[in-house]
């Protein structure tokens, strides 16, 4: 659709840059490069922006800020990491106070290389970001009119990669909620997940061939243990999680008891599970910030 690619408004944030990339970014606005001829505006306000342009590596100070700003950008949004530091941590990568590139905290769509990145490269990155934005817009549109086209199916070992991704995406939200990223889903590698396929049943929800949610379950004696419930944030509140739980129950016909656990601050998940008939029966401290709430459902 017209318009979307013709008016990229930018939020420029300096995570911990040496200011080299910032100067080059602002140079884009000057008469020589004049990005406004492409409709680019530097808004300085996440709620108006489309493109989140970050310079510098992520450190202790900027980590929460990047997350906050990212959350305040309206969809469809694109993150552009400008310069070596924002892309990977650059020469500061090994510093005691540096976490790494921006993709440590938020998903990055375009990496602009350079130290400092040249204005031409930055403009190019923004233009590339526009293509990503268009793609995201298409996905969002599909979401809006595709909610009834969600397919629920069992996942095979060969399809572990998208499930790994969706678990990471959902795990990000949980980690932010709890202020702690020690969630199993975030720590797990692809190989570990593939190994789990030998033991567990995996279910997925798909729209247009893209995985948007998954859950796994296995029989442990008399009890079915359900875990790894993950739904892409775009589809929250669309009833995907409830349907995935129902799929689990359907697969283990005849088993009377289902158990699962969630973090103590995951109120949205708790609500979904309670609506599905799960009841809290014990809590368990996992880390100082995360307490597992164990839930159980008894079938008659």
């Amino acid at each position: 659709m017209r318009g979307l690619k013709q008016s990229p408004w930018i939020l420029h944030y300096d995570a911990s840059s040496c200011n080299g990339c910032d100067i080059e970014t602002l140079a884009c606005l000057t008469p020589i490069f004049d990005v406004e001829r492409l409709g680019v505006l530097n808004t300085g306000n996440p709620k108006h922006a489309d493109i989140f342009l970050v310079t510098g590596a992520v450190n202790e100070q900027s980590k929460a800020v990047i997350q906050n700003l990212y959350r305040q950008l309206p969809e469809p949004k694109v993150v552009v990491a400008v310069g070596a530091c924002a892309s990977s941590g650059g020469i500061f990568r090994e510093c005691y106070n540096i976490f790494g590139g921006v993709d440590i905290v938020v998903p990055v769509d375009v990496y602009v290389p350079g130290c400092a990145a040249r204005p031409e490269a930055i403009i190019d990155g923004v233009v590339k970001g526009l293509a990503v934005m268009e793609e995201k817009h298409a996905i969002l549109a599909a979401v809006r009119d595709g909610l009834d086209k969600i397919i629920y199916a069992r996942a095979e070992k060969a399809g572990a990669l998208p499930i790994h991704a969706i678990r990471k995406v959902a795990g990000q939200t949980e980690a932010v909620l709890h202020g702690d990223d020690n969630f199993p889903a975030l720590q797990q590698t692809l190989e570990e997940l593939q190994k789990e396929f030998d033991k567990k049943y995996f279910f997925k929800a798909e729209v247009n061939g893209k995985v948007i949610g998954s859950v796994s379950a296995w029989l442990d004696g008399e009890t079915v243990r359900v875990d790894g419930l993950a739904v892409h944030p775009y589809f929250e509140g669309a009833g995907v999680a409830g349907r995935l739980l129902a799929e689990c129950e359907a697969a283990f016909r005849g088993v009377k008891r289902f158990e699962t656990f969630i973090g103590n601050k995951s109120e949205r998940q708790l609500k979904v599970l309670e609506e599905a008939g799960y009841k809290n029966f014990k809590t368990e401290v996992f880390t100082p910030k995360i307490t597992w709430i164990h839930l159980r459902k008894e079938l008659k």
Partner: protein
Amino acid sequence: MSPWLRLIVYLVAAPVVGGVLSGWDRRVSARMQSRRGPPILQPFYDVLKLWQKQNLANHPSQNYYVLFFFLLVVFTGALFFAGSDLLLVIFALTTASIFFVLGAYKASSPYSFIGAERELIQIMAYEPMVLLTAIGMYMVTKTFYIGGIANHGGLLVLALPGVFLGFVFALEIKFRKSPFDLSSSHHAHQELVRGITTEFSGRTLALIEVAHWYETVFLLGWVYLFFASSPVLGVVMALGVYVFVVLVDNVFARLKWQAALGSAWAVTAVLGFGNIVVLSLQR
């Protein structure tokens, strides 16, 4: 043209004209800074894009205030072009602005709060001059009806030079241009972020933009009234005033609210009221 026809033309054409004027404003500003500037249609692209974006809000109800701001601005312009009572038009415009301000208050963020507060100060600054303009026009033409004012024989500006200058000054505030862009500015990196519009996004922001287009056309229509007896001169002067406003926007830095309010009231008292005094002495 019959009032109804004018009304319909306004409702359809005003956003187009307003949008083009706004695009032209950005282009001219860019040229003044020796840049190329965006395409003339850039404001339309912006609004189209905003329309497709997600709508974020701190409190969902803040968006309704903006919706009613939009409706009332359109209504105000419609009243104006249908030839209704000028004072009524002003009050409708004020009510519209109040809804906008309340929306920003509702958003309850520090930036939009101060933006709202400053917008109120701006309203307070220009309102007396706008009312005096209506009064001055009444004293010359003996009617508050815009239809009657437009059909008045002579050039109003000859009898109301002070009021006209004061009104142009008030327009500078009304268009939120420097040096009076206290509440919200089109330029980035300000102490208030985006002031009154900070917390609006997506379609709500698009509505605000379109409301401003309507407002621009309606205010330039008012400038036209000063020259209504000679339509060509009227259109030229309306555009001329717009160019002037853009020029001033580019050459001035922002004023503090104290200075904005003080200067606006001083101009109103000297130029606007002075003109009224002269007129009433002539009677």
